[in-house]
């Protein structure tokens, strides 16, 4: 602090009084004069100070809201993580809806309860049983193709063997019927254990990799035309009169959570119109997915049209309608059908040779 005291003169008094007068005059200024004056000061010589103050306040606000922002970011990340699973579920359900639309009748949707115990690697438990019309040897299918076959049936549940089971067999053929064979599990070591083998193909039939193999319908258990797998390569065996091919299965049982069980009447009627198979399996799956999407759009239009409207023309939300999860075999009233859907044939023709 300075130690020297200065003289106090009349000039200081005059200056002080002048300052007080100016300050009092500033207080009494009307708004129309005061605001433009203050605004002019803020926009000119005080602009740096105003900018500093604004930046400091923003910094403080950012600091105070950082925890909220972190929480929001975590929530968004969590949602993004669950979004993949939701998309996968949506995709799977679309496919299943498409399959239901394509089958139209004679099937029972079932939930797969995976068995993961010892000896249960190749079997699955289905959430439907004899009460729903399930019978032993009923084919179990997914939108991608054949999953397996029902082995035993309880009133409310059933056990099916997947194609990877050692006892599983299906008569199969190429789409152009040029080659036939018996498809079963490839009993090799991991990871080839989860492939299929097509045995007994005639020597003159040379199948190229990627060729689609479908069920032939021979034997009566599986209807004709269900995708089984695609050819990977030929397996060299000791058999001289027939070829054996390694197949990539159309369905991975580990990834299946919902399936359709075909009822005996549907098996007899055939499913050749369901998987519109071309040479390759992708086209069949795409057609089913497209059916599911179009079904969703149709259903959305129906729901929208069915909503009652208030006087302003807006839709009024209603309580959801509970529907049965199971679609029984009712040819006259088919699942996933619209009023324009034609009824299924009352007496399906038998295609089993």
């Amino acid at each position, binding site marked *: 602090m300075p130690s020297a005291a200065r003289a106090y003169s009349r000039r200081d008094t005059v200056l002080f009084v002048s300052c007080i007068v100016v300050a009092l005059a500033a207080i009494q200024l009307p708004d129309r004069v005061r605001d433009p004056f203050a605004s002019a000061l803020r926009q000119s010589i005080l602009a740096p100070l105003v900018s500093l103050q604004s930046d400091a306040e923003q910094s*403080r606000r950012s600091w105070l809201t950082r925890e909220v922002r972190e929480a929001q970011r975590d929530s968004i990340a969590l949602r993004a993580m669950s979004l993949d699973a939701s998309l996968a579920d949506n995709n799977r359900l679309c496919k299943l809806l498409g399959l239901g639309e394509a089958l139209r009748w004679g099937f029972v949707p079932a939930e797969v309860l995976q068995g993961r115990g010892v000896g249960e690697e190749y079997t699955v438990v289905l959430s439907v049983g004899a009460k729903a019309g399930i019978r032993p040897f009923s084919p179990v299918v997914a939108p991608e193709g054949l999953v397996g076959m029902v082995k035993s049936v309880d009133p409310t549940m059933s056990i099916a063997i997947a194609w990877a089971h050692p006892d599983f067999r299906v008569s199969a053929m190429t789409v152009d019927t040029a080659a036939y064979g018996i498809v079963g599990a490839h009993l090799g070591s991991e990871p080839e254990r989860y492939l299929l083998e097509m045995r007994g193909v005639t020597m003159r039939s040379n199948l190229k990799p990627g060729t689609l193999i479908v069920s032939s319908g021979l034997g009566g258990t599986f209807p004709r035309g269900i995708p089984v797998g695609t050819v990977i390569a030929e397996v060299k065996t000791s058999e001289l009169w027939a070829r054996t091919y390694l197949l990539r299965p159309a369905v991975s049982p580990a990834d299946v959570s919902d399936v359709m069980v075909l009822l005996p009447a549907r098996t007899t009627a055939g499913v050749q119109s369901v998987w519109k198979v071309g040479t390759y399996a992708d086209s069949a799956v795409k057609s089913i997915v497209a059916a599911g999407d179009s079904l969703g759009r149709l259903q959305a239009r129906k729901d929208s049209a069915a909503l009652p409207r208030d006087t302003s023309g807006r839709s009024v939300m209603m309580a959801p309608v509970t529907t049965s999860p199971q679609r029984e075999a009712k040819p006259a009233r088919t699942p996933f059908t619209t009023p324009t859907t034609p009824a299924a044939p009352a007496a399906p023709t038998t295609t089993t040779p």
Partner: protein
Amino acid sequence: MRPTDFFRTLIAFIILVMLHYTLRPLLGWRPGPDFLVIATLLVAIRVRPGAAALIGLCVGLVSDSVDVHVFGAGALAMSMIGFTASWLKAVFFADDVLLNALFFFLGKWAFDIIYVLAGHRGDFAQMAIQLFVWSPLTAAVTALFGLVTLLILRPVLRASPT
């Protein structure tokens, strides 16, 4: 005032004004430190009372322009405490921590009293709470920060040997 002392005081003044518009909003305390009062008091004790009143008027107008509540009230209050501080500087010339703290405390409280009374802000109860609760708190915080500022700026504010 010697030119060297003038520039040193000017630097300290600018630093304090900067702190008022950066550190104070950053802290966001209701009883926040008033660096403008500290700056005015620091300059006032180094100049004549008339000049101190003029500086106080300018600082007050700056304050009123940036934070427009009662335009002119800040200028009036700052002029009065600037003039008074310069007039009473003989009392506070000693380099004593408690005296300096009291100097800042009284200066800030006097500023608030003049500012609130000149502005007629709120009803009587609100004014009383402001003047006897918040203003002493703000004055105490200002005194604390004023002391810290004095310690930090001591090399700058030390008078040149004559």
